[in-house]
């Protein structure tokens, strides 16, 4: 039954963010999909071709006054008619107006019985005008919500902004919505398959993509990448602010920014593992969480053994400057100082104090189904308005299957998925919302554990 549903992508973004350009790109590219477009923007450039329907955005609130039950009446009407000619198309794209709150659009696919039967929400794609997003986030709630709801964020018009500003914007947006996939584009030039057919609610994909969203601040401040031939090396440190320091040495660390980020993600997980204490004069293990013991006064030496030529990344808890970290090649007679190919400091990411934040609950163990139902039901009834998105999976006691959740405001869909098999049974729930009380939500969840 599930497979026969027509997938729907919601395209949001402020006026001028490039939605129409992207739509035209999608419609003209060869992708083998017959796409119906429901367009809502007035006054922008028209769409060139395809089955395009103009719908006047009609937001319908319910008599119960609950904003989470608010739906888009025009979509129900138009999609209701479209599904009668469904052999003519196999994909639907809904473009919202720039000022639209994405909530009602997404809720339509949960709330309306007929729409729910025929369509499935594939993903929410938000385009961001890199040159203007900062002001938009300050000025408008809709803009914040469009970012918070997104499964994919396309940072568009990158040609108008410096790489440094782009990094800052991305870091700010990531803080608001760590589950999203980031793409950078000029003139909305992105591969169609990165926005269509995402099954964006496939959590495995999200988790593989960004395992560190659980830990938005990196536990290290500095990375140096060194090109090292086979041989013995000496890492020297002077006295610094702490009596010990964590370090992970990553083999085959490419010096490019993207690779550094990947390396950082990998290191986050190493840092989460219990460290191995390494004393002066010892050899630092490669690819493991090492805790350098720096209690003794003065100059301290550690060793690195490199078997074959490669680039090594050192991810250190503190900056090189703080401990005057230096690397030398130890030959039989001489000692040659090696300079890093590249250095990078990892800045604290909370530069903006946005109300919209996210956090994740992650823990081992099983939960009691009754307790989690009661707790989630109560939480969503009370706080559903502020919870934009909820995604995750949980391990229910005495059930071999993994339960997957996804929700929009107080609407939640939970389904048993594949069996755990050999995988460790864990729980992972990600909340994105406004003014969320992380502590009490964590406490609430912990009470559901068996």
């Amino acid at each position: 039954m599930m497979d026969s549903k027509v997938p729907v992508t919601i395209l949001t973004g402020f006026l001028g963010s490039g939605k129409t350009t992207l739509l035209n790109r999608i419609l003209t590219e060869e992708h083998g999909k017959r796409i119906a477009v429901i367009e809502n923007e007035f006054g922008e450039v028209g769409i060139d071709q395809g089955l395009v329907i103009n719908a006047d955005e009609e937001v319908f609130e319910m008599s119960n006054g609950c904003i989470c039950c608010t739906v888009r009446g025009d979509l129900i009407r138009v999609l209701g008619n479209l599904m009668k000619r469904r052999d003519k198309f196999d994909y639907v794209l809904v473009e919202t107006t720039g000022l639209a709150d994405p909530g009602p659009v997404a809720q339509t696919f949960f709330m309306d019985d007929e729409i729910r039967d025929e369509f499935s929400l594939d993903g929410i794609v938000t385009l961001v005008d890199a040159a203007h997003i900062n002001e938009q986030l300050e000025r408008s709630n809709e803009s914040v919500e469009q970012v918070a709801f997104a499964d994919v964020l396309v940072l568009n018009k990158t040609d108008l902004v410096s790489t440094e500003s782009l990094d800052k914007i991305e870091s700010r947006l990531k803080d608001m919505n760590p589950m999203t996939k980031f793409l950078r584009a000029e003139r909305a030039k992105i591969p169609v398959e990165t926005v269509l057919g995402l099954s964006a609610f496939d959590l495995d994909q999200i988790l593989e993509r960004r395992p560190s969203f659980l830990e938005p601040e990196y536990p290290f401040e500095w990375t140096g990448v060194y090109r090292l031939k086979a041989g013995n090396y000496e890492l020297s440190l002077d006295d610094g602010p702490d009596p010990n320091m964590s370090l992970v040495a990553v083999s085959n660390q490419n010096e490019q920014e993207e690779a550094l980020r990947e390396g950082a993600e990998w290191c986050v997980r190493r840092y989460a593992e219990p460290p191995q204490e390494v004393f002066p004069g010892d050899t630092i293990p490669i690819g493991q969480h090492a805790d350098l013991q720096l209690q003794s006064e003065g100059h301290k030496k550690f060793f690195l053994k490199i078997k074959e030529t490669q680039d090594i990344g050192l991810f250190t808890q503190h900056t090189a400057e703080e401990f005057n970290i230096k690397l030398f090649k130890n030959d039989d007679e001489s000692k040659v100082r090696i300079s890093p190919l590249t250095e990078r400091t990892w800045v604290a990411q909370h530069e903006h104090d946005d109300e919209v934040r996210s956090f994740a609950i992650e823990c081992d163990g099983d939960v009691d189904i009754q307790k989690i139902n009661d707790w989630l039901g109560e939480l969503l009834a009370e706080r559903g308005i502020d919870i934009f998105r909820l995604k995750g999976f949980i391990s229910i006691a005495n059930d071999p299957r993994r339960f997957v959740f996804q929700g929009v405001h107080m609407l939640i869909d939970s389904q048993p998925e594949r069996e755990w098999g050999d995988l460790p049974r864990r729980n992972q729930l990600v909340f994105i919302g406004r003014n969320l009380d992380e502590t009490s939500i964590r406490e609430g969840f912990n009470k559901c554990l068996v």
Partner: protein
Amino acid sequence: MSGLKNFKKGILRDGWTADIDDYVIVCEWASGGNSLLAGDVTGGISAFDSSSGDTLWKRERNHDGLLAIDVHPNGEVFASTGQDGRILIYNVLTGEKNKTIEVGPEWVEHIAWSPDGRWLAVAYSRKIIVFSSDGQKRWHSDNHPSTVSAISWSGADELAVACYGKVAIYDVATECIQEQLEWKGSLVSMVLSPDGDIVACGSQDNSVHFWRRSTAQDSMMSGYPGKPAHLAFDSSGTLLATGGSETVTVWSFLDLGPEGTRPGELELHNRPISSLAFAPKGMRLASGSKDGSIAIWLLQKDGDGELLGAASLDAPISRLAWRPDGRAIVAANAVGKLTSWRVKN
């Protein structure tokens, strides 16, 4: 669609079947029951002979997306509307087009001739436009709060219009709003009792709301699992049949009801109700479902009923149409098939 094959046909006797090209949007009897008009989603309209099912005429692609058809009370003329923003008026016997009215770029979603045939009303996006019977535009309303979701004539000059938040009742002759029945919610369907007193609407929030205009009393019936998009009143104005789930829920307006009473619940279908039609006279109700089944029920005045016959087709039912004499019924479905049965007394 399995498991229904064993249903007893009861009072249903197999008649003819016919095919049109795609999802049947509308099917309506014309010429006093001598012919049946059926239109599909792509805009094709065909006429079939009532007794043999032979095609009398066929016209393809009248609209780019057909939305509605209504037959004039004289049975000789009908009008259609579509997503192309046009109204077409045809001769029932020949299928020839008499007139084309270009309304505008938006959808013309609903159409209804007034009971005496003097007016033709259409819903055009948020507006109502009224034409005289020869197709001359006479009047249009202001914009409603949302796209109009249903229209129905409640008297010779009186038109009820449902939308988000209200039902507005217009006097078309004086071009004034006579009455507004307000309800904070999105009204998705509407049916009026034959005397025009009771206005019943299905709402997006899975409830049925109704107003009695003579006493200014209104009530809400909630608890439906889905939205009641299909409603029907019997010819005496006693029973209101409603969809909104796989059960047909029947409210009785007998005595002080339906407030405080239990509705009749007719159970047979396995998927939500997709069409409801009372026979032109008497207490027979036909129900069709997304599971492809149809059922004929004999109702009592309290809303309960017994099954008189049932049948199963291979695709969701989109429309049921009783012949004006109540002796035959046609079911139209989502794959373009028309199936007729004779109905025993």
